[in-house]
């Protein structure tokens, strides 16, 4: 199968969906040249640096029958528009009793590791998970971003697509034929028997690399990528932990109140699964600090392979 990059796969999804539905419209400060060329200035709009306005304008467009895709670039810029995300986009469907639909895709990059420092490095998906009314997707491969993005554009709700910046250049197999990927279906990236490792975004690839290394130690990891956080495929995670009896969650976001806590709660709250646990669940997450600039400190702030392996070994004892 042909291989294309994560970024190219996302662009393909947009191109296909913009051809498919003429109500789609794109807002961003930096215009994507391929879309502009094919669909023109009116639909592929360049915005001033005014995040509150274009995040909010997407809501007005959506409520008026359009399907906006908004590229905010870095998630840290999205905070400028927090009212529009939290008080408006998330609540408007419910609060107005479902009178209108709000199909919107907001794209934001997340992650650290490039020495961009605190104001350009963050993984804030759990902040948005705490706000009912937003769907949240977190594609980890080129195949996934294409299929999930197409589903997001067709969905009738505000969807935030968080894209890890270290994955943009990553290549992977993407079929030429059209496909979509439904929300709420976790993928078991690798089957195993000893420890369930739930990993997010870039950490999916770290977990897979570790699974290969730990095979040599005789430890078999089952690696699960939830793919979408809202809706979340709880069943796949629970079934896996029921089988292995052990859980390690790996996420680059800060540990406190992160998505990892949610996965942990999932297996300890349910009596059936709790009883089957052979060791307490572990979280390997980013430290609770703003991301520092200097490389040694930045690396220290993020989950390392050593820390993940240590957590797995601890789970095994």
């Amino acid at each position, binding site marked *: 199968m042909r291989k294309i990059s994560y970024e190219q796969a996302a662009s393909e999804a947009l191109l296909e969906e913009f051809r498919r539905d003429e109500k789609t419209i794109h807002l961003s400060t930096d215009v994507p040249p391929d879309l502009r060329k094919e669909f023109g200035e009116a639909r592929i709009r360049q915005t001033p640096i005014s995040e509150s306005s274009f995040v909010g304008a997407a809501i007005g467009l959506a409520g008026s029958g359009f399907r906006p895709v908004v590229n905010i670039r870095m998630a840290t810029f999205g905070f400028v528009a927090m009212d529009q995300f939290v008080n408006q986009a998330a609540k408007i469907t419910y609060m107005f009793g479902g009178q209108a639909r709000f199909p919107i895709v907001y794209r934001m990059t997340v992650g650290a590791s490039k020495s961009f420092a605190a104001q350009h490095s963050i993984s804030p998906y759990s902040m948005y998970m705490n706000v009912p009314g937003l769907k949240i997707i977190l594609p980890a491969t080129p195949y996934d971003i294409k299929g999930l993005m197409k589903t997001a554009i067709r969905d009738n709700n505000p969807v935030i697509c968080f894209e890890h910046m270290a994955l943009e250049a990553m290549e992977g197999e993407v079929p030429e034929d059209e496909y979509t990927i439904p929300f709420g279906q976790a993928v078991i990236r690798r089957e195993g028997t000893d420890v369930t490792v739930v990993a997010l975004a870039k950490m999916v690839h770290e977990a897979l690399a570790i699974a290969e290394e730990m095979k040599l130690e005789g430890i078999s990891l089952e690696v699960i990528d939830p793919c979408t956080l809202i809706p979340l495929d709880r069943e796949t995670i629970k079934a896996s932990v029921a089988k292995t009896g052990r859980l390690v969650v790996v996420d680059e976001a800060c540990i406190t109140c992160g998505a990892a806590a949610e996965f942990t709660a999932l297996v300890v709250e349910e009596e059936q699964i709790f009883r089957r646990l052979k060791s307490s669940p572990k979280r390997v997450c980013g430290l609770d*600090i703003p991301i520092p600039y200097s490389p040694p400190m930045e690396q220290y702030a993020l989950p390392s392979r050593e820390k993940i392996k240590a957590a797995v070994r601890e789970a095994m004892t």
Partner: protein
Amino acid sequence: MKSRMENKREDLVHLYQVMLTIRRFEERVVIDYRSGAIPGIVHSYIGQEAVATGVCTNLRLDDRIVSNHRGHGHCIAKGADLNRMMAEIYGRKTGYCKGKGGSMHIADFSIGMLGANGIVAAGLPIAAGAALAAQLEGGDRVVVLFFGDGATNEGEFHEVLNLASIWKLPLIFACENNLYSVNTPVQYATGLEHVSERATGGYGIPGVIVDGNDVVAVYEATKKTVAEVRAGGGPVFLEFMTYRWRGHFEAPGIPDLRPAEELEAWKGKCPIAGLERILLENGIVSRQTLEEINVQVMQRIENAVSYAVESPFPAPEDALEGVFSS
């Protein structure tokens, strides 16, 4: 650039030294970024040196400035230590922010440099607060706020214009209109030729449009403004017309889509070459003196790089320190 013989020799030579320091510093940062010695991203100030220099030369140590992502020039002009700046950009423990901030986040509170900022327009409300503090303290300190044309499209910009206006804050808006935010032309993004119209028309704040590549013009306009603001006249908006010579930042990923002829034309208006001409044509200094200044500046940059390179990286665990004050 007009010859202004009323300016004292020392003043003109000082302006020259500061601009040249910024230029050489930035050239070195670009080289060291390209070689991989500097991590992250850096936004070069090359081409805009006259603005920071002409503005900050009018400020006292106790006056304050707030900067943006393109902040090295503002820091240098306010009197920051080149060694600690370079060490910060190199990610070293001896840097201004102990390696936590990097190029986009240099600050030196001891000289009234309240910090660069990675979020467009985010420094504006902070500057308004600093100006309110100056007003409440009752002295005659002023605050200068550096920001780009692109920042004028954020809501915070408009909110701060209003606050500054109704509270008559001792705040100088120093807008560096370099005609673009990344690749978006200011005329497209604002519908205006001059963004200072927003201050004058909408908020009753006096605006002055200044040739931002003429350091003497910048110096004179700021001098007058600082005197007015110190006297309690309320906020003033200075719009400096200028141009950046390099791409938006030193990193692959964003192509520079500005017309090549436009860039060349602006390079012809180099602020440093312009002042050099005044100095030489009026016999204020000899070519030899300029060369000596250049040698001194290069030596300071060399020293700063050596200081940075010889400084240790922070220990990984240093990352844990300083989330909260004691």
